[in-house]
Structure formats: C-alpha cells, structure tokens
C-alpha cells in the first residue's frame, strides 16, 4: 500500500482528532503519525498532518468521509500524487458592500480559487465596512492569480486591501 499524507484543519477542541482517526481506521488505513502544527494556527483551527498507508480505494473513501464531515483538507498526498490547497487571509476596508460584494467575490473565484470564509463588520449603511476574506486556492500559482485579481478589484473599487504576511 502506498504512503499517504493528509494535512487538514482541525478545530482545537477535545474529540476532533478522534473523529478523524476513526474515519481512517474504518477505511482500513494504517496510521503512522499525527503532528499538530500549532505554530501555524489558522484562526481557531490548527493544521494537523496525518501520515498513514492506504490503497487508492481506501484513500478516496477517507477523503470523501472527511469532506462529508466538513473537514478542510489543506494538502493531500497518495504515493507520488500530491495536491495542495493554500489559503491566505485579507481584510478589505471601504465601501465593500456598496461596491457590490457579490461581484468582488465572483471576480476572484474560478475553478481553482474560491472565497472560503467571509466576516463582515458594518456600523451603518453610510459608514465604510471592514470585511474579512479567506482565499483558498489549489496551489501557489492559483493563489497568486487570485491575489492579483483581488488587488485589481480593490483598486478599481477604491478599497484598501490589508493582506496577511507570508508565513511560509
């Protein structure tokens, strides 16, 4: 069976990891190790790297079960096949709602990039708002493309983009 690796985001609370390990066991995965990347916390979540052995059918079943449980998979690797989902956070300031927030979201989204999280702080219709956006992309190139698109939209709509510093 090929070596497999999943990097997922788990909420930092008791019982979360047990659910994941149960999914791996149920699909005949042979667990090697579990590492919590606490230094790379994402909001209230912690990236967790799980290494195990599984055949192709079992790996696909594990992936499907995780998605069904709404578990975010950052990176997956089965044998030599590897796919990474990268995320980057932003706060956008200005009249984000008035300048058509739906259009802003759609303009950065495509088959490999999407807005994964959105939080809005707004005082009144007249006041500028603050919007937290998390961009998720399949790989570095897609993420860079998404960031460029967001930057362009913010310039066109006179919004201030406050990006996350690069942490890797």
């Amino acid at each position, binding site marked *: 069976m090929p070596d497999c690796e999943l990097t997922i985001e788990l909420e930092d609370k008791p019982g979360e990891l047990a659910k994941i390990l149960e999914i791996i066991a149920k699909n005949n995965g042979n667990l090697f190790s579990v590492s919590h990347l606490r230094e790379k916390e994402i909001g209230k979540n912690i990236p967790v790297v799980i290494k195990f052995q599984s055949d192709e059918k079992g790996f696909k079943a594990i992936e499907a079960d995780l998605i069904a449980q709404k578990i975010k998979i950052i990176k997956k690797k089965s044998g030599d096949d590897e796919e990474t989902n990268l995320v980057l956070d932003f706060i956008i300031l200005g009249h984000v709602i008035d300048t058509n927030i739906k259009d802003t979201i759609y303009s950065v989204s495509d088959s490999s990039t999407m807005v994964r999280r959105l939080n809005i702080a707004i005082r009144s219709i007249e006041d500028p708002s603050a919007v937290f956006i998390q961009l998720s992309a399949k790989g570095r190139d897609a993420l860079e493309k998404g960031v460029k698109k967001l930057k362009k939209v913010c310039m066109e709509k006179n919004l201030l983009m*406050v990006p996350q510093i690069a942490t890797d």
Partner: protein
Amino acid sequence: MKTIDLAILGFGVIGSGFSDVLLKKERFLEDRFGIKLRVVAIGEYSGSLINPDGIDLKSAIEAKKNKKPLSELPDWKSGVDSKEILKTTNTDIVVEVVPSNINTGNPGKDLIRTALENGAHVVSSDKCAIASDFPGLKDLASKKGLELKYEASAGGAMPLMNLIHDCLQINEVESLEGILNGTTNYILTKMQKGGMTLNTALREAQELGYAEADPTYDIDGVDTAAKLVILANDIFGLKKSFEDVDITGITQINKDAVGLAKTNKYSIKLIGEIKEGEVSVGPKLVPIGHPLDVDGSLNAVMFETDIARDVTIIGRGAGGLETQSAIFSDLISIINDSCG
C-alpha cells in the same frame, strides 16, 4: 591611547543624548577600546561651540536640559554654522544627527557631503539625508577613501545592516519585512488591546512623546519608506529611491478592522517589505504570536536568508538613549578600521 576628534552636528535629542552617553562611557571606551573621544565642535543653526582642546560637554548638556541657549557658553562662536565648522575645524569623524527634509534630504545631505569633501569620516542617524541620495553619498565617501556609516538611520538601536554585514556574511538575504516605526505600532497596539480609535491612540502617543506634533510622516508610512530605501540600497544593493516605494499608511485602519483581525487571530501592523526587488509599506495582518507581533513602540524586523533561514531582531527603533547604541557601534567600527 588613541585620541579621536569629533564634531557633532545637531544638538537635539540625539546630539545631546550622544554627548551624555559619551560622558558616561568615557572610562569604558578608554579601558575597552583604548580610545579617547574628544568633541571639538558642536554645530547648531545659529552658531557653534568650538574648542580644539575639547568642549566642556557637561556644561553643554546642562544648558540643553535647562533649556538655556548654547550661546551662553564660553566656546560659542556666533554665526559659525555647521557647514563652516566642517571647513575650518580639523575633525576625524563627524556625527551628523540633524533632522532633515524627506524631499530634499537637507540640511543633512549637504553637511555629509561637506564633511566628506573635507576629509572626515561620517556617522549619521539622519534617515532623510541618507535616503535622499544613497548612491551619491556612498560614491563620494568611497572616492575620498572615507567611511560613511548610518546604522542608526534605519532601525534605531536594532543592528540591522551591521548584523547582515558583520555576522551573516555568508548569507544572501532574500527578503526583509518588519515594523520600522514605533509610533504606528504604539497606535495599532492601543487600538487592538485598549479599544481606542486611531485618533485617541495618536493623541496618547503624542502626549507620551512617541509621536511628533505633526505625525503624518509616521502614520502615512513615509518614515518607514525612508528607512526601507536605506535598507534596500545597503543590504540588497538595489538602486531604490523614495519615489520607488509603494506606500500606504494606517489612516484608514479603524476599530472594526482591528476587531475583525483580532477575532481571526491577527494583529494589524504597518509592515515594510523588500522582496523580489520591490519595496513597499502598508498595513498587514500578522498572526498573533508571530515574531513580528510585537507590542507598543517596539520595532521588529525579519530577514529571510538562504543559509541561516529566518532571522528576527526586535528592539527600540528610536529614542535619545537607545539610538546611541547604533551610533557608537558605527563610531567604534570606523575607529578600529580606519583611524589607525
């Protein structure tokens, strides 16, 4: 014992602070380095203190502390300004610590040029002067076979350039990012942890002496940009001037933005960055607990290098006392290397 004659140009917070530390560390400098630093001139706008046998620094510092004019002191020469001193007084090293204009770089730029043309090494804390004509000033120093050092001009007490040149020699520096302005960091910290608005935090910073009466250089990102120009030229060898820096300040950052960042485990910081040949300054989200997530008026800079990987330095970016650490570091280095 080696006696080195100095001229101090500018006797404000930094100039008088330099004199203060010089007096306090006189014995230390003699014992540790075998050098005696003798200040033969202090240049001000309307005149200068000049004495080839050494100025009475204690009296000058007392006058400054008591807000009395230096013109009451016996060594005062009215009408002899800083430039005149450089032409007429024999000095080994000039300590240039005047405040200059960001657009023209003067009066500091002219003073540094005059000092070099008259054969003196220069130590400067004047970021506007150095940033305004980095290649020109360095070329002149090189042609004259003199040293021009300016560690205090970008990062205050933090040894950024000397760290790279003297301790990380084998490394190629790939990028730099960090907080280079204590005033904005103080304001953003107060917004995040004290729930203040930007204006209230700014007023408090002014009351505590962190921010100038006109704080636009700080909050508009201009101060950080000037420091980045120096670091880009010195560390990265980039021919960048102030106009090349993409600048965004913190004036649009409000309580909502700070609160939203905090909810998602970030602090908002004014971050200067040099990466892939580009120089920029603007507000960024820094994960809480990250090495650059420092509070209050602290500065922090992270270098990404090929061998040592990430190196972070945290310290005081300004201050009459703290800045002397960098000025004396440059001074001692010049004396050891070039005042044989």
